[in-house]
């Protein structure tokens, strides 16, 4: 899925969190957004995924204008995301959280729910199985029936990814997926992201872990104070003098 | 709960247990048919918006059941009073009436305090075949006549008649009406509208206030500014009429103010203070026992009730307590007349009571009249120098 951002801006009380930003993510790419703290990375994600409304600018998904659409409609078009501060329903089990992700792909009509019609029962059974598979895929097979509140931090991060995958994304936004993970977990995450991309899903990630970013990304966008500082392959970015100045000199 | 006959604590424990057992686990708990006192069941609005009615009613019932038992009871048996507080809610009244009839197996029902609570219980009493004596005003309780249903207060129509009659005598032709939006005020308002023309009186302004309202100056200003108003009639009970009276005085309205029997207690005088001067209302002679002529048959009854109530409870009597007194005494009279507590016999004895002197008036019941009072039982009172006076 192709994502195109043009002239995107958002200010909070006079501070430009995102300022006239342009970039394009080609289908199937692993695209990283990096930058120092406060560079506007999370704001950018919240704008793209419809949680914030941009002040101006345009967002296109596969050439369709999706600016100002609410998150649920973006999800229906194939844009899914995870959160830096995880948003997991702690009142539900791990499996149910993933089943929630399949919401758009289940039988969910009012009458079939009310009367518990056979088609709904079949759909729910399938949904449960697929959710279990996904949990295994992300490496959470130990926690199938656990309450989400009982999961360790690393597993919750993977649970969020499984939930997003359950919705069959065309493009997946990952907000700091490696934050708080140890080296083994990060390695597992790297393999997971690679295999997601291998399935043809476009991946956009915001990440602080430079090792991870540099090893898996095809394109890297560097933000500073909401503006584009640089964009290019990991090697290009690493050699960009502005980037070096911002990261080392600033 | 039951006055006399058992220690309260044990009764309480037993009854609570019985109810829990029956409702939660389900046990066969037909109440123990003990030494067979006569069971009088009462449901009154002792709390809630109608507590001004229910509170004195309950106190009266408790007082007189004690008194009657001290004097040897009825038909040689003790009276047992089982009473519940419906808080003025019809659904609660229905539940308690059913409990009295089915679980407590009372011989006779007294209640409710309001028309709504009474009407909710009426079908139950009819179904169970037990006499019910209501203490509520509306005419619909006894009209049309239902075999098992009686009531002691005059109808609100009689109150309206008494007031309109006095207005007619004073030559008043156009009046402003103000009334509460509760059951008492609504029903009174309807009756006043229905009969005003009979007295050549036109209602030119008609305003209402909520039972919990705290200020009626807007309504009264409107009435005052309506052209041609010669007097104001307020139909309501509780604190509302007291506030109306105070506002009326403060607005400096000079027209005669009439209240209904809904304020007929000394409490009203305390609340309104000097603002009450000149207010007229129809009421039972209870408020002016000493002003009654020596030969009035009601004089001793009223004096005795007032004395007993005030001695026992340390507060002044109200018209509403009198309704409860009459209800209980009519029931006792009927049982003694019938010589039994068998419901049908008591019912038909009630219908045959004639010339029974109560606090509210003299009752002449018949199969066609289950109230038995006429408008003349209302005395017209006027407030002068902070006291009630009979208007001749």
């Amino acid at each position: 899925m192709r994502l195109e951002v043009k002239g995107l801006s958002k200010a909070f009380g006079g501070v430009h969190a995102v300022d006239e930003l342009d970039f394009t993510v080609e289908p199937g790419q692993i695209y990283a957004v990096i930058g120092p703290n406060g560079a506007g990375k999370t704001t950018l994600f919240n704008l793209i995924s419809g949680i914030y409304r941009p002040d101006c600018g345009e967002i296109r998904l596969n050439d369709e204008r999706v600016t100002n659409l609410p998150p649920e409609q973006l999800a229906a078009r194939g844009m899914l995301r995870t959160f830096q501060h995880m948003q997991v329903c702690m009142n539900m089990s791990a499996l149910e959280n993933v089943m929630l992700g399949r919401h758009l792909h289940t039988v969910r009509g009012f009458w079939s729910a009310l009367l518990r019609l056979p088609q709904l029962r079949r759909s729910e059974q399938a949904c449960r199985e697929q959710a279990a598979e996904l949990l295994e895929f992300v490496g959470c097979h130990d926690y199938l029936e656990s309450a989400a509140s009982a999961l360790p931090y690393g597993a919750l991060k993977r649970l969020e990814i499984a939930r997003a995958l359950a919705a069959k994304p065309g493009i997946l936004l990952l907000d700091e997926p490696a934050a708080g993970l140890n080296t083994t977990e990060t390695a597992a995450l790297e393999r997971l992201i690679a295999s997601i991309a291998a399935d043809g899903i476009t991946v956009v990630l915001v990440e602080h872990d430079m090792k991870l970013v540099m090893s898996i990304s095809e394109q890297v966008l560097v933000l500073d104070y909401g503006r584009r500082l640089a964009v290019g392959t990991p090697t290009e970015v690493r050699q960009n003098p502005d980037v070096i100045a911002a990261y080392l000199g600033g | 709960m039951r006055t006399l006959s058992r220690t309260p604590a044990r009764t309480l424990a037993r009854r609570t247990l019985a109810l829990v057992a029956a409702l939660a686990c389900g046990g066969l708990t037909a109440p123990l048919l003990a030494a067979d006192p006569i069971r009088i069941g009462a449901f009154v609005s002792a709390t809630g918006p109608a507590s001004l009615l229910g509170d004195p009613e309950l106190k009266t019932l408790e007082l007189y059941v004690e008194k009657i038992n001290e004097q040897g009871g009825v038909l040689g048996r003790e009276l047992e009073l089982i009473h519940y507080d419906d808080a003025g809610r019809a659904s609660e009244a229905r539940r308690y009436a059913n409990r009295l009839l089915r679980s407590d197996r009372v011989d006779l029902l007294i209640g409710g305090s309001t028309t709504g609570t009474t009407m909710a219980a009426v079908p139950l009493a009819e179904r169970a075949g037990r006499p019910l004596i209501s203490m509520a005003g509306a005419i619909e309780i006894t009209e049309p006549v239902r075999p098992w249903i009686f009531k002691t207060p005059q109808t609100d129509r009689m109150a309206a008649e008494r007031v309109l009659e006095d207005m007619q005598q004073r030559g008043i032709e156009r009046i402003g009406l103000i009334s509460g939006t509760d059951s008492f005020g609504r029903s009174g308002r309807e009756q006043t509208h229905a009969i005003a023309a009979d007295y050549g009186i036109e209602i030119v302004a008609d305003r209402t206030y909520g039972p919990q309202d705290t200020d009626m100056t807007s309504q009264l200003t409107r009435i005052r500014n309506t052209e041609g108003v010669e007097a104001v009639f307020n139909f309501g009970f509780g604190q509302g009429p007291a506030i109306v009276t105070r506002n009326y005085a403060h607005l400096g309205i000079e027209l005669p103010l009439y209240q209904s029997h809904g304020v007929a207690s000394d409490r009203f005088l305390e609340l309104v203070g000097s603002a009450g001067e000149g207010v007229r209302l129809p009421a039972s002679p209870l408020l002016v026992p000493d002003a009654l002529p020596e030969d009035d048959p009601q004089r001793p009854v009223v004096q005795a009730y007032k004395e007993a109530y005030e001695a026992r409870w340390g507060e002044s009597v109200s018209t509403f307590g009198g309704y409860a007194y009459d209800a209980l005494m009519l029931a006792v009279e009927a049982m003694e007349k019938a010589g039994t507590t068998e419901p049908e016999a008591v019912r038909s004895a009630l219908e045959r009571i004639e010339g029974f002197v109560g606090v509210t008036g003299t009752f002449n019941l018949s199969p066609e009249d289950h109230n038995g009072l006429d408008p003349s039982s209302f005395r017209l009172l006027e407030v002068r120098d902070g006291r009630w006076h009979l208007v001749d």
Partner: protein
Amino acid sequence: MLAEFLQYLIAGVTIGATYALVALGFTLVYNASHVINFAQGEMLMIGGMATVALLALGVPLPLAIALAILTAALLGLLLHRLAIAPARQADVVTLIIITIGAAIFLRGIAQVIWGRDYHSLPSFSQPEAINLFGATMYTQSLWVLGISAMVVILLALFFARTAVGRATLAVCMNKRAARLMGVRVEWVLTLAFTLAAVLGAIAGVVAAPITLTSYDIGIMLGLKGFVAAAIGGLGSGVGAIVGGLLLGISEAMTAGYLSSDYKDAVAFLLILLILLFMPRGLFGSREAERV
């Protein structure tokens, strides 16, 4: 004509000021804890009834009023310490139900101690009524307005000028941040409940000579206060005051000019219209959602 209008206005503003004080109490507690304190009306009742009871014992009026307000303050403090704080982990709805329980409990106690009668309180000053451009005004109305205005000003100064007041505001805005800044949040919440109780009690005392008082007067006046707070956007101090006055005036005007049957309905219709067309209330703030 003008006299008539003025008469309605006086009636509306007087009762509206009472509503506003109660509404401020709701707002204070709501801002600090997101709880709708349904025991707020009972504080009003305690204020009025305790004054009446103390007067009957021969206590002079000013002292009786002070003691009554103190009683309400203590009850507000206890309400938070004994009933709300122990359940602080619970859902907001649960806390609301606790305040309903507390309201019924307080009403029950008042009924046992003071009985079910209505009582009047003497007017604070003589004469009881004065003439104003052809309209009559209770002198007590002046007391109500004056004291309400004073309370509002004191409250504003308290929040703007004192460290405790600023800490309270900080808690209202963001509990976690306030805690990090070293504010003792529990203490501030207790203060909010206590202050709200004081506001209610003051309203109860100053209005009692006009409204009369009884053990259950808090039900209606509490509800009206809540409605006033809702009109103002539930959470805005200015909104509570404007909401209270608006409610009082709309009631009086409707009762006078339109239909007295539907005068209460107008206030509630107002809520619906405001919510439908100005979803944050008149003065409700817009909260940004943080992810």
